[in-house]
């Protein structure tokens, strides 16, 4: 019988009773064939690979991470709490050393959910990796964490949550934003003024296959990880780079995904997108599990797998090589951008579109440029006809001046805002007014 070289916990939660809508890609059937494949392969008969049920994320777990406007209940259904709870279970297994690594094979996904959430963007309501990371840091203290987002879509939500956080290195590999939703994730997005170089974007051209993708991992991701020396590596493991995925244009294979995880050696992997539910997911998920457990995956392949037909053209490969030569500099020698500043605050004003829910949010973010701490942050969010919302975040190392200013504004006269939320990381208080 097979034995895992490295023990792996798999939180398999297919949410067989939940869908965005009947024919939406994010529906009940999505992990059905993956489960069939797991069962037939006897994945959980392998010594060292164990199946777990998810935990359930509480209001506090979510409010610690997000500005949930206007309420948690308005944004989150039970499915989101349990999906995030699946990621938390994965973290618990690894942090408590019950298993050496863990894979949260849960749905719905979360990597398009930003710091402020007003609704569903790109199938995501709350950011399940971010909820997990904040759960880890609340319980186990300050950690250096690397999130490598291997979903085919730019992980714009996770990028936004950690834009100002120098402790979290976020690297997204994705199909070039000029050709795919959400249309962001360009190399010049390198993080906020306090976290320069801690955001990395690797936009890959359409039809990138195994060689090109793994080239980027080897030439860009691994050297940066070696320098950053994270306490934890998290793979935000979307599976829509697959050659059979119906909503993207890449040419990655199950073998490629398995090799990618073998190279990356993530402590925790969390499923994101991936909607070729019959042709890709059963094989990709099997490949990832085997690779994470250190088992032989060489015989895992799609029934129609033919490396010659999916291989990238020479031009594509040359483009990727050129790109990968330039990208590491953005981490090692980041150049400060032209950050807008008003009265001691870095300011960002943005419009954010929630495609699934058809909401347009106007958002203004102010981060205090403090030399004593990471700086208090304020966000003002208005989304269509919904209530105007105001969020205050005090960092874990908050100085007295920022703390006083934060609470003063949290308790200020309404000033046209109906909802106020405080994320006080210093005192671990997460409340609405």
């Amino acid at each position, binding site marked *: 019988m097979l034995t895992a070289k490295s023990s792996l916990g798999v939180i398999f939660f297919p949410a*067989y009773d939940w869908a965005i809508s009947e*024919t939406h890609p994010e529906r009940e059937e999505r992990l059905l064939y993956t489960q069939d494949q797991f069962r037939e392969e006897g994945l959980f008969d392998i010594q060292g690979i164990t199946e777990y*049920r998810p935990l*359930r994320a509480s209001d506090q777990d979510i409010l610690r991470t997000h500005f949930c406007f206007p309420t948690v209940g308005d944004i989150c259904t039970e*499915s989101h709490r349990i999906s995030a709870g699946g990621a938390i279970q994965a973290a618990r297994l690894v942090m408590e050393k019950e298993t050496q690594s863990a894979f949260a094979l849960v749905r719905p996904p979360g990597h398009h959910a930003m710091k402020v959430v007003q609704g569903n963007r790109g199938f995501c309501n709350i950011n399940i990796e971010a909820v997990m990371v904040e759960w880890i840091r609340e319980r186990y203290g300050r950690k250096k964490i690397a999130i490598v987002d291997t979903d085919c879509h730019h992980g714009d939500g996770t990028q936004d949550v950690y834009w100002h956080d120098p402790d979290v290195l976020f690297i997204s590999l994705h199909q070039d934003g000029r050709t795919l939703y959400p249309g962001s994730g360009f190399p010049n997005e390198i993080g906020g003024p306090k976290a320069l170089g801690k955001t990395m974007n690797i936009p890959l051209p359409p039809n990138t296959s195994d060689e090109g993708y793994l080239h980027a991992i080897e030439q860009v991701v691994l050297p940066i990880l070696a320098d950053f020396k994270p306490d934890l590596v998290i793979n935000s493991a979307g599976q829509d780079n697959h050659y059979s995925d119906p909503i993207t244009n890449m040419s990655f294979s199950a073998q490629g995904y398995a090799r990618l995880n073998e190279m990356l050696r993530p402590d925790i992997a969390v499923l994101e997108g991936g909607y070729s539910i*019959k042709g890709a997911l059963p094989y990709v998920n099997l490949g990832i599990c085997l690779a994470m457990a250190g088992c032989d995956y060489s*015989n895992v392949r799609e*029934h129609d797998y033919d490396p010659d037909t999916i291989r990238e053209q020479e031009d594509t490969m040359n483009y990727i090589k050129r790109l990968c030569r330039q990208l590491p500099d953005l981490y090692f020698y980041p150049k400060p951008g032209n950050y807008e500043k008003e009265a001691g605050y870095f300011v960002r004003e943005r419009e954010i579109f929630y495609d699934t829910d058809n909401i347009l949010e106007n958002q203004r973010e102010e981060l205090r440029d403090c030399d004593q701490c990471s700086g208090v942050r304020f966000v003002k969010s208005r989304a269509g006809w919904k209530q105007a919302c105001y969020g205050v975040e005090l960092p874990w190392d908050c100085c007295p001046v920022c703390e006083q200013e934060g609470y003063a504004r949290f308790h200020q006269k309404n000033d046209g805002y109906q909802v106020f939320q405080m994320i006080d990381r210093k005192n671990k208080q997460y409340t609405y007014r």
Partner: protein
Amino acid sequence: MRIGIDIGGTHTDGVLIDGKNLLTAAKVPTVHGNLLESISHVLRLILSGHDPKMIDTLNLSTTLSTNAIVTGRIEPVGVLVVGGPGIAPEVFRIGEHFHLIPGSLDHLGTETTPLDKKRLNEAIVDCVEKNVRSYAAVAKFSPRNPKHENTIKQSLGDKADFVSMGHLVSGNLNFGRRIHTAYYNSAVWRTFMTFSTALVESLRGFEIQAEINILKADGGTMPLSRALENPVQSIFSGPAASVMGILAMVPSESDVLILDIGGTTTDIALFAGGQPLLEREGISIEDRPTLVRAIHVESIGIGGDSQIRIEDNTVMVGPQRLGPCMATAGPAPALMDAFNVLGLSHFADSHRSLEGMEKLAHGQELDARQLAKAAVDAAVNQISSKIDALITLVNSKPVYTIHEILEERKIEPTKLIVIGGPAMVFKELLHNRLGMEVVVPPLHEVANAVGAALTRTTAHLALTADTATGMVSAPRVEVFRSVSKNYTLAKAVEEAKALLIADLEKVGVAISAEAIQVTQADSFNVVEDFYTVGRNIRVVVQLQPAVMSALDMTKVDIPVINQS
């Protein structure tokens, strides 16, 4: 009237039961190598004074298959395996005649690589040359499409006396387990068949015309004719028979734990709402997981003869057993001796117990009594933590719907039924430690035979339908037919029940649709290119283990005829 016989490793136990009433019970030695002799022996004792023609059911729990496997007295099996992509099928190599035949099916049952007939024939020739007569044919995803397995069976033709086909051993997915199950099934088939023929002959001699059933590890029975097709299902039925016997003696609708405390080990089983907790997929044989459904039994190395020792100033009990306890002239102090020293029991020679414990305590910072108390505490703690672990396990088993996470009933046993030699001694201790009601039923030495007599047929059937591809399949009963677009979940449940009823009717077992439990009924929208093209339906139905009637415990005060 019903007869229950349990052939165990040491004893063969038999009971005769009429309705709720235990009429006779007997215990004789098991004669390995001639189990029929043991059966005849026990039958003579329990039938004495009763008309054998009144017996309508004889249920037999036998170690025949288990022993054949454990002692290696099994016949060679030609294992013909069709793998395909995924975990390399070589991992599941078993026996001396294991052949991989190229070919593959995907998870929908679609043939993606045709079966390599040339390689198949070469494998068959090789097996025939080595005088192999018994075969196992197993393809990955065969429950979705039995084509390759059927082809193998056809190609074998009369070169095989017996072929176990993977899709018939269980409708459930799990390729490796299916290979192991089919292998063992074919390996014990001839032994079982020979035994069965002799058994039928012998019962004729007793003028017994009863229907004969064989006990399974899931606590239920199967008709003898079914057992001839699936002899592997008869393995490890002994512990299951005991558990069912206890349920017949102490009927429990709530959650209960059952402890069988023996000389070397304590076995722990759990009943939730009257249903035994089963192994998730199946029991393991020689450390190889199979698809044989079985009651989940946790074993822990604590029993009356568990050795007591002191390591690093800590008193430890078990899992070693050096022999019987000192009270019965054993070599070293054991748990039973500790009970004797504390006055909790007066088993055999208590003086020897005390002598042994004093010797062990000598030079330590405690006296014999303190040592005995520490040993008993350690034993109770071990049992108690194992019980906690079992309850945690059952309450944390994976679930796949939001509904289950939010609504699922937590399993919280409030009663403990204890049997076995030291059961009475443990009664008060376990009550104090766990705060549960503890019951020690009388007559526990023949609980296994009572369970055998009173348990009923169990069966299990999985049905899968895909209205997009237009197929419905119930592999275990060989149903693979086309289905129309308007096939629904309700129709699938109805069909699964009807198939299970018909399947049992074939072997003379009549059941009603109401007795059938639906354990899975799911229907998924199948979407292609953003349009619904059909529904994928999954149904599992079962006839769960249950006792025919509870034993009238006011009338069990009969002597067990003990000739062991």
